[in-house]
């Protein structure tokens, strides 16, 4: 795909967890997009992609929220999301909320076609191959489920991480196996979720990496929380923080500012 008009107009979909929990990831996304030559705007009418309702079986609320997003994100060349999960909701699921409503379905299809997860947007649409970032660490990367299986995100983050000065990637076994977060699953079935994330942290520990990266805040909070409960010293970050060269000022997830 060739980059469109010199500076595409990109709307950032911040996502609930980045907004509430880790705003720096949103600013990392803005930096990466601007560095890649995009004009970035943040529509103020956005809230949530609707997954909590959609996956709880509340289709009607999911549709109402989706209509809000269709209005909020109309008119941009692209919508970019620093999350494979929320990106997957917009690209793979939202159009089907309107299977019985052809007009809205067409709008949802158009939005789905313009929506990208951040890292895949940088590589697949903007053609970014190298970044000017430094992070002296051995890192391991967890493939979040929705990004991997709904959006095909696997090689893109690894390709960009390879250009980060000082960073070595050490792959974990079963990087593609779910960490046990699963949205509300982690609190509806905490026993199962905890055992799943404990399996994941074993695989993380075996890599010897000091830094765990992924592209989704939900998985990151889950894995960080478990690592810290186990007394692990592995630091946890959203991949965008590393790619944007933000690791100097920003403490890892679950650690206090010094």
């Amino acid at each position, binding site marked *: 795909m060739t980059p469109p008009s010199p500076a595409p107009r990109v709307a950032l979909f911040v996502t609930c967890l980045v907004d509430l929990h880790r705003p720096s990831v949103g600013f990392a996304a803005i930096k990466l997009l601007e560095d890649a030559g995009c004009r970035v705007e943040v529509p103020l009418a956005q809230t949530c992609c609707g997954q909590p309702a959609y996956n709880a079986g509340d289709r009607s609320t999911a549709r109402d929220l989706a209509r809000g997003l269709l209005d909020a994100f109309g008119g941009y060349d692209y919508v970019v999301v620093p999350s494979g999960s929320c990106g997957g909701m917009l690209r793979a699921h939202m159009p089907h909320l309107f299977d019985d409503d052809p007009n809205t379905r067409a709008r949802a299809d158009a939005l789905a076609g313009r929506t990208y997860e951040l890292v895949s947007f940088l590589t697949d649409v903007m053609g970014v191959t190298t970044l000017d970032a430094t992070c002296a660490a051995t890192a391991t990367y967890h493939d979040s489920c929705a990004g991997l299986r709904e959006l095909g995100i696997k090689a893109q983050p690894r390709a960009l991480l390879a250009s980060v000065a000082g960073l070595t990637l050490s792959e974990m076994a079963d990087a593609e*196996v779910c960490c046990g977060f699963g949205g509300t699953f982690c609190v509806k079935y905490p026993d199962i979720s905890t*055992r799943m994330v404990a399996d994941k942290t074993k695989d993380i520990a075996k890599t010897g990496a000091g830094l765990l990266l992924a592209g989704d805040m939900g998985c990151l909070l889950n894995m960080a*929380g478990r690592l810290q409960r186990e007394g692990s010293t592995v630091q946890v970050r959203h991949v965008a923080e590393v790619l944007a060269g933000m690791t100097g000022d920003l403490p890892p997830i679950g650690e206090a500012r010094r």
Partner: protein
Amino acid sequence: MQIRSPAFKANVSAALADERLQKALEFTRPAFPSRRAAAVADLPEFEQLRDIGRDIKNHTLANLDFYLEIYAANVERAGGIVHWCSTADEARAAVLAICEKAGARTVTKGKSMISEELGINAHLEAHGITPVETDLGEYILQIRNEGPSHIIAPAFHLNRNDWEESFRKVHTDLPADRVFNERRDILTEARTRLREKFLAADVGITGANFLIAETGSSVIVTNEGNGDLTQTLPRVHIALASIEKLVPTLEDATSLLRLLARSATGQDFSVYTTFSTGARRSEDLDGPGEYHVVLIDNGRSGMIGTEFQEMLRCIRCAACMNHCPVYFTVGGHSYGWVYPGPMGSVLTPSLIGVDQAGHLPNASTFCGKCESVCPVKIPLPKLMRHWREHEFERHLSPSAVRTNLAIWAWFAMRPQLYRIATRIGARVLGWLGRKKGRLSSLPLAGGWTAGRDLPTPEGDTFFARYARLQREGKL
């Protein structure tokens, strides 16, 4: 089979505390995915075959009445008898009537999940007929009075000591110094005992992996050969099959067979694949004198035309559970009925009601691995989500969940108020975690903090910081 699905959470707690089970799960977990991956890598057209498999099943289900009639006519043309059964009761009665008419005292059985669904063994026993499971795993489970925990490896949750202990319980003439160190020792013991049963049986009951309309044949695949002895040695063979096992042609069956073993065990083909067509003919050297097909609906036809129709494509390979991180955390018995794992989480609510099995489609992270390995491309997460929609519409989901969702949705629909609420939340949590950046406990968040710390927010929300930077002209 007794329904224990409503107690899913208690079943899970027990399973997580069961060291023997957890050891077995940990031991077995890597085997299935690596074997399947190797088999798939050896067959370049595997992905195309998945589309073909899906299309064969879709076509059959769209024309099921048509193919069922052709199938039944061809069974009868080949000298077999078809028993049409709408319900489990009718199917149990049909099996019993055939056995009683044959004067049966001992009935051998090949491995069959539909037999578990119908509870055939208990029904026969209640009427004075002795059923004997001949699949190695099923044989030990029958001794232990347990159900299968997996649809193709029914007893993988048991270890060597369990086998020895169970054998000694019923094979009371076993010498005390007899060793059961190797798998071979176990096999030899079972084989010796089962040989007597095979020869003594009056009726043999098998399941069917496929029914073929154009020939009226039933097909079974096994790795132990027990199915063949079950269906050829006794005077009467009964094939139990639900209606969605049907495929139009022999070629369709062979296409699906190319998918089945690769998806299941990673074999190119199972060791034994056996086609049964009718009863023994005068020129045949062996075979049963009577061939009966007990054709079972038991809820399937009610799925046709609904959003769950796609589930009827299932060929019971177990790839979904073999790759499921939830299944390999909780084991098959936690699901509380016949069918575990992702396929069970969709099928069980269809067959016993979502009011009974509601936990099953909820206990999924929607990681999507199951769908990615399903040989007939059943969108299992989507179908589980449909069950959650049914629950939500029928107000079966817990009221606390509904209330929280409604409050959250009310704010999420109002961006300005949502900003205020999230800002307060981020501030409060950020303040609480200011020293360490995380909390080890928090009121109302026990589900999270029982096994994990809760990383706390940076402090201000994205939108608050964004607005501030804009005001300061820094953006």
